[in-house]
């Protein structure tokens, strides 16, 4: 057997699926967001059905079943008797008044009547709401209409459904699935057709407008037709899609639930942010040196990138505020994005020191989009990581726990045999030899260790130690790759070596930001 050496206890410990805190938090956020939307939908439904349900007589279930059976028998008998007869006339009433705030008048054939809750509306009958009033109608297909003050509408039968002719004012329609038919709202300017959705229509002398809260509607003006999605809004005049602002539907008695439905997703992709800053001017030249050393850094009022690849630029541009963006987090793109190197000098405009890093990053995104024709999407994906955790009691604390000067938290690279300089607290000296690396330092925070380890790891290292103190560093580890094999077999590899100073790297998975490169072109040099 393949895994005969392991006990079930070990297999369970190793192979039972576990989630990182980031993944759990992100799931929680998503589910809570969806539940919130479900609540909004439910409250909308309950608000509109509460009164009707309250009016319904409570039937004994047995009688209800009996009635249903009788109904089916009657329907069969009736259909057999009348199958040769012309189709029955259209049902005369099309809606019931669900609620009235203030006054609602019905108008038919110039006859006016004051309407009450539960009154029915006949085909062709109009209803008008007074100033400061509002009303709700339930259509026979289950759709619901909320009518704003000072509005007038007429309900009509269309060839394949129901038509609401909106004379003036505003309505919000919560349309049920229409099956084969349609629900139409017609104003003198536009015609809105729906299959099942929540939307808003308003009509005035000067023009009409429509907006979608949930689902999709088609709006026709003359020969032109557009589809509106949630959050989109259109005026009959310009007939150009615009954003539906919550204020437009704030008059509704269900405004809170409707606006919640309109709420944008929790995270907006950075690509959707308007007016990203860009460099005043930028020069790009190919670097033919063949060297693999390069970097990006602000200098004066410029950003200078020397001998960088396109992916190095992407890593800089999309680096999250906390942590790094490794090569493994940039997915896609042709081979030259990792091999071809460029020198770039770009004018920031103001002094680089006074420009926030996020703004410079956004400028690099603009440069990539304009000069490299980059099309990329930011997503979150589950990637393999290492969690840095404590072993037993963790590292030995430095005698002096006052933090070192952050400006002195540097790494001094020294070759074997060279004199090791005296270093301030918080700094690390790295001695490289063909067979191994030695790290020493005093009053080191975990963040420094993560930085040191990250340079030698193909996976992101996440600090899961919860350790906030400072420790002294002195350990040696063997190179685990390269042409020269370690001759001194007593030197442990990095993963083992860090356990000696109280840390451990555990393989895990975590939801991390990734950049998906959809399209990128070689830049034009200047």
């Amino acid at each position: 057997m393949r895994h005969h050496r392991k006990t079930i206890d070990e297999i369970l410990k190793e192979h039972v699926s576990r989630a990182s805190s980031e993944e759990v938090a992100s799931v929680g956020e998503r589910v809570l967001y969806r539940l919130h939307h479900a609540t909004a939908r439910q409250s909308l439904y309950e608000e509109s059905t509460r009164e009707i349900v309250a009016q319904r007589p409570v039937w004994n279930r047995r009688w209800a079943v009996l009635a249903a059976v009788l109904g089916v028998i009657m329907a069969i008998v009736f259909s057999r008797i009348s199958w040769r007869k012309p189709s029955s006339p259209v049902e005369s009433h099309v809606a019931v008044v669900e609620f009235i705030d203030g006054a609602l008048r019905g108008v038919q054939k110039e006859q006016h009547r004051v309407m009450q809750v539960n009154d029915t509306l006949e085909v062709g009958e109009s209803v008008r709401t007074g100033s400061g009033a509002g009303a709700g109608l339930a259509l026979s297909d289950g759709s619901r209409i909320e009518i704003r003050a000072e509005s007038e509408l007429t309900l009509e039968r269309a060839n394949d459904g129901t038509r609401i002719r909106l004379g003036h004012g505003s309505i919000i329609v919560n349309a049920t699935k229409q099956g084969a038919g349609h629900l139409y709202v017609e104003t003198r300017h536009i015609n809105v057709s729906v299959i099942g959705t929540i939307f808003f229509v308003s009509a005035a002398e000067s023009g009409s407008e429509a907006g979608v809260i949930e689902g999709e509607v088609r709006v026709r003006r003359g020969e032109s037709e557009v589809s509106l999605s949630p959050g989109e809004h259109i005026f009959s005049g310009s007939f150009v899609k615009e954003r539906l602002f919550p204020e437009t539907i704030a008059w509704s008695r269900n405004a809170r639930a409707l606006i919640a439905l309109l709420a944008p997703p929790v995270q907006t992709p950075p690509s959707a942010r308007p007016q990203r800053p860009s460099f005043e001017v930028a020069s790009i030249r190919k670097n033919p040196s063949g060297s693999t050393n390069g970097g990006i850094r602000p200098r004066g009022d410029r950003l200078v990138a020397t001998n960088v690849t396109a992916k190095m630029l992407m890593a800089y541009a999309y680096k999250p505020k906390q942590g790094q963006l490794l090569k493994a987090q940039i997915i896609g793109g042709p081979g030259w994005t990792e091999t071809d190197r460029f020198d770039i000098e770009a004018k920031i405009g103001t002094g680089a020191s006074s420009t926030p890093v996020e703004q410079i990053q956004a400028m690099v995104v603009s440069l990539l989009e304009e000069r490299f024709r980059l099309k990329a999407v930011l997503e979150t994906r589950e990637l393999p990581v290492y969690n840095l955790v404590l072993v037993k009691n963790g590292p030995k604390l430095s005698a002096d726990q006052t933090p070192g000067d952050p400006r002195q938290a540097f790494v001094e690279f020294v070759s074997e045999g060279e004199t090791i300089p005296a270093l301030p607290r918080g700094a690390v000296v790295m001695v490289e030899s063909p067979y191994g690396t030695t790290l020493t330092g005093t009053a080191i925070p975990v963040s420094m260790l993560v930085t040191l380890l990250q340079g030698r790891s193909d996976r992101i290292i996440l600090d899961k130690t919860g350790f906030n103190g400072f420790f002294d560093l002195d350990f040696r580890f063997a190179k685990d790759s390269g042409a020269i094999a370690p001759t001194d077999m007593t030197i442990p590899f990095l993963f083992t070596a860090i356990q000696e100073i109280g840390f451990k790297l555990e393989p895990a998975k975590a939801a991390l930001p990734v950049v998906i490169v959809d399209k990128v072109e070689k830049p034009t040099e200047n």
Partner: protein
Amino acid sequence: MPTVTLPSVTSGFNQEFDELFRQHYQLMYRTALGVTGSSEDAEDVLQTIFLRLLGREFPPDLKKNPRGYLYRAAVNASLNVMRSRRRTMQIVDPDNLSAVVSSDESERHQEIQSQLIDAISRLNTGAVEILMLRYVHNYSYAEIARTLGMSQGAIAVSLYRSRARIKKLMRVSGEKG
């Protein structure tokens, strides 16, 4: 287990419901992930359970012991997912569950995981509840006993039997413990 701070997504959200979700979603998601081995299924399980509670009066058992109720709900819903998945898999490809020898490390890891998940889904609900507390949430015997209102001896016996059953189902030799 590290704690996670959820940003406040909603305003006007039912306070009691919101608190219930925030207090227990981690336990439920991690449990569902342990049973199903799939983050998508685990997310579905979490959402389904809370959707069922939405807009309703909480059941008395939930009011009495929310943590225990929701933990059990997560185990039950996850096992249902696994059982229905097994039915679907058997319809699609009856040989899919048999072992495929592979030298590739990651494929082998996946294969063991898939066999393990399948074996877990064939245990009874009570055994899975104990197993997940032990191996997903790293509870000690005493903590499991306290959480489920059982004796430590009963927990030990259940874990021993579960491991033996998993061993048999996975056809693994060399189980020591």
